[in-house]
């Protein structure tokens, strides 16, 4: 069941035009410059610094609570991080003209997939508490990502940074599968018959897919950055933006790589770890996570890595193996884990939403002073510089976060059952994974409720 939004000619024209997208990108880029500047030279007081507050409270909350669950990868279509590199690579800001700069090499085959992104995410996660609280580190991290994106754009073709390296990109891509929106072709046969495949090779109207995706065979949102180039380059107007049932991609158990399965597991484990470390009552893990280089930090890093890279994956693999044994299935356990991994997306997303809600509502009031005085120069641009700290929505907790987790658990349980049925294992295959995801959800509930 799909409803094509781009059937409305004005909307299609609006999306095909480069100007609206460019306008948002320029605003986002200006915001990024301000964020990096305030991070590097602004006040070191995190909750008064524009970079910390706008990135880790405002942007993160908007991303996790609105953009990803409702709009999938739409943020990637306006994300400012790769823009300078992309403009240099293209030698243009708008439509194709002439030659750009760079070597345009193909990304090494051995580095394809999500493994680099998984590694980048773990690396950022290990240092996340200092980055979240120290403006200079946030400034350095973002400036470093922009420079890395420029360097990769000048060496490799298309958006190699976004596709293979960006630590947030893999995160957004995985959970974008749950979104009720998609870019897909209307008629795949038309794409197959189209010899020049301008959506991938490019034309005078637009660039070949920067995300290295052929829209004609696109089945999931994971790697589609919603850049809208295929909408511009398709001579048959065969590309559509559809409303669809949320999580439509999660029905695809085939064709899942181990890297993608591991991403789902890694993010689920990391979400639980973030709730425990950042929102838990215990201060020792937070102190250890902040003290980079100390023996306590190494202990924290070891426990964090063991939890997200060994314990959670091992637990889920054991559950799949138990299910395969119970159902007497002849499927290999790694294959079973890959096939069942889309079912972990809803529970993982709900863990991250619960974490983000708790963090956002407690800290949202920090946004108002910094937007009035982003450079800490004593300005009061919006008249909100004097707004004090106030936690919002405290009466909603803990039932708001409990409800979010229950929705995720219900959805995950449904997907586990459906995929287990598809794999021929039925209830016996699903049962151990139902139990383990229930236990993980109860762990999250315990951390949030006690």
């Amino acid at each position, binding site marked *: 069941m799909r409803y094509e939004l781009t059937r409305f000619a004005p909307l299609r024209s609006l999306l095909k035009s480069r100007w609206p997208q460019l306008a948002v990108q320029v605003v986002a880029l200006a915001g990024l410059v301000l964020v990096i500047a305030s991070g590097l030279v602004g006040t*070191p*007081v*995190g*909750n*008064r610094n524009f970079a910390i507050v706008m990135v880790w409270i405002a942007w993160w909350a908007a991303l996790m609570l609105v953009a990803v669950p409702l709009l999938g990868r739409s943020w990637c279509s306006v994300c400012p991080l790769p823009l300078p590199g992309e403009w240099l690579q293209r030698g243009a800001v708008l439509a194709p003209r002439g030659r750009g700069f760079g070597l345009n090499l193909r990304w090494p085959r051995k580095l*394809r997939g999500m493994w680099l992104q998984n590694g980048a995410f773990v690396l950022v996660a290990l240092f996340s508490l*200092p980055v979240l*609280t120290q403006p200079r580190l946030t400034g350095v991290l973002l400036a470093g990502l922009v420079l890395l994106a420029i360097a990769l754009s000048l060496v490799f073709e298309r958006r190699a940074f976004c596709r293979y390296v960006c630590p947030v990109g893999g995160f957004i891509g995985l959970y974008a599968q749950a979104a009720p929106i998609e870019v897909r072709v209307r008629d795949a046969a038309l794409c197959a018959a189209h010899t020049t495949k301008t959506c991938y090779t490019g034309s005078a109207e637009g660039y070949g*897919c920067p995300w*290295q*995706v*052929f829209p004609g*065979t*696109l*089945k999931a949102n994971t*790697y589609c950055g919603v850049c809208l180039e295929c909408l511009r380059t398709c001579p048959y107007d065969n590309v559509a933006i559809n409303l669809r049932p949320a999580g439509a*991609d999660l*029905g*695809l158990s*085939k*064709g*899942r790589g181990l890297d993608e399965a591991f991403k789902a597991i890694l993010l689920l484990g990391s979400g639980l770890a973030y709730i425990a470390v950042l*929102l838990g*009552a*215990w*201060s020792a893990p*937070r*102190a250890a996570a*902040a003290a980079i280089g100390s023996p306590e930090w190494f202990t924290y890093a070891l426990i964090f890595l063991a939890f997200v890279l060994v314990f959670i994956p091992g637990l889920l693999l054991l559950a799949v193996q138990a299910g395969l044994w119970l159902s007497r299935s002849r499927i290999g356990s790694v294959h079973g884990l890959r096939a069942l991994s889309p079912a972990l997306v809803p529970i993982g997303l709900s863990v991250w939403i619960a974490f983000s809600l708790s963090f956002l509502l*407690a*800290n949202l009031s*920090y946004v108002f002073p910094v937007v009035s005085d982003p450079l800490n120069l004593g300005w009061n641009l919006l008249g909100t510089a004097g707004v004090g*700290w106030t*936690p919002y929505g*405290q*009466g909603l907790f*803990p039932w708001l976060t*409990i409800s979010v987790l*229950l929705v995720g*658990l*219900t959805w*995950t*349980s*449904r*997907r*586990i*059952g*459906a995929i*287990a*049925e*598809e794999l021929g294992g039925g*209830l016996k295959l*699903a049962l151990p994974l139902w139990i383990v*995801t*229930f236990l993980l*959800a*109860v762990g999250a*509930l315990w951390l949030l*409720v*006690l």
Partner: protein
Amino acid sequence: MRASASHPSLPRNWLPGAVLALAALAVVFLPAWLRPTTPVDRTLRLEARSFEFSPSVLTVNRGDRVTLEVVALDVVHGAHIDGYGLEVTADPGQTARLTFVADRAGAFTIRCIVPCGPLHPFMIGRLRVDPSDTLVRAMALAILAVLVGALLSLRHPPAAAPSGPEAGA
């Protein structure tokens, strides 16, 4: 035996869902079965230093009249109790007091309200007001959530699976 999607058997279709819905309502709205002990007056010392409260978890019983003595050990700190909307600020080396009746059961986050350094937003502790059945209710709802998900997956078996997502050209 699964009900056919094209020829739904009405009782078989709605009965499990109705039972689960009733069970969920019962879990949410059943009166609290845990009875609080006789209320007493309690004085609790809460030490605040960058960036932690000690003890990190305070436990009282519902109905207790609680006097919280917040002692700032290094710089100015404060304590805000979520859910109760109460707060107090303590100067370095000083003790600030806050008295209230713990009339709501549950776990409530205690947050520092005076910016005290980089980890200030994460300077948090907990006030536990017993007896609280929130976790028990949440766990019961989680069991129901799994059952609902399982039921839905059985009632709506997957369509013929399309081929997997293609990422490259």
